[in-house]
């Protein structure tokens, strides 16, 4: 079974990101496949490379990153949601003339078509939100 997981909440602020991460891990540990993880709305904040939570708390950016690297997943963040919330990879930072950036692989900035494709292609789509 192929899953698309949609994350609409920012890390820590609401529990949506944490639930989605637990669910994603369970999909994989149950022997199923993740077709797409799509971060929308405040979910894009999970992509921020600068997240620096207290050392005794789960680092959600790092948790997503590890999961993606281990299983060869792409983590798609919606470009429109990302830009207005200040999530830029080096290419977008150039385009918007910013000297800094805060998004890097395995997080990938892409369009809403990836959400639609994920919903149409995967066997199941689940959304975690605020």
């Amino acid at each position: 079974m192929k899953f698309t997981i949609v994350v609409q909440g920012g890390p820590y602020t609401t529990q949506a990101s944490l639930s989605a991460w637990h669910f994603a891990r369970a999909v994989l540990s149950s022997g199923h496949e993740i077709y797409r993880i799509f971060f929308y709305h405040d979910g894009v904040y999970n992509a921020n490379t600068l997240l620096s939570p207290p050392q005794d708390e789960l680092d959600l950016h790092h948790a997503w990153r590890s999961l993606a690297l281990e299983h060869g997943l792409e983590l798609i963040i919606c470009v429109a949601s990302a830009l207005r919330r200040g999530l830029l990879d080096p290419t977008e930072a150039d385009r918007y003339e910013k000297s800094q950036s805060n998004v890097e692989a395995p997080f990938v900035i892409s369009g809403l078509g990836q959400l639609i494709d994920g919903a149409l292609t995967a066997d199941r789509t689940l959304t975690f939100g605020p």
Partner: protein
Amino acid sequence: MLLHLLNKSPEHAALLRCTGFIRHGDCLVLLEDGVYCATSKAGAALGELVERGIPLYAVSADVEARGLSARLSPDIKLINYEELVALSIQYTKSKRWG
């Protein structure tokens, strides 16, 4: 065959709203602050679903985190995330209420 996901406490309108959309063959999963709907005190709101034979689940990690383990209505079945994955396969689609 809808999996309904509810993540808000009974203080919110989501509980009342979603119960009207749950039909025979669906199930309801309580997660995050939604597990407060699973306490025996709040159970009345779910009573109608129990009578209709709708399966009710709550994510155990959320129940434990909130100190609700001893307060759960007996009508609620605790599940871990793997069991939530299994339910999301058994039911063909899902709807989030929040």
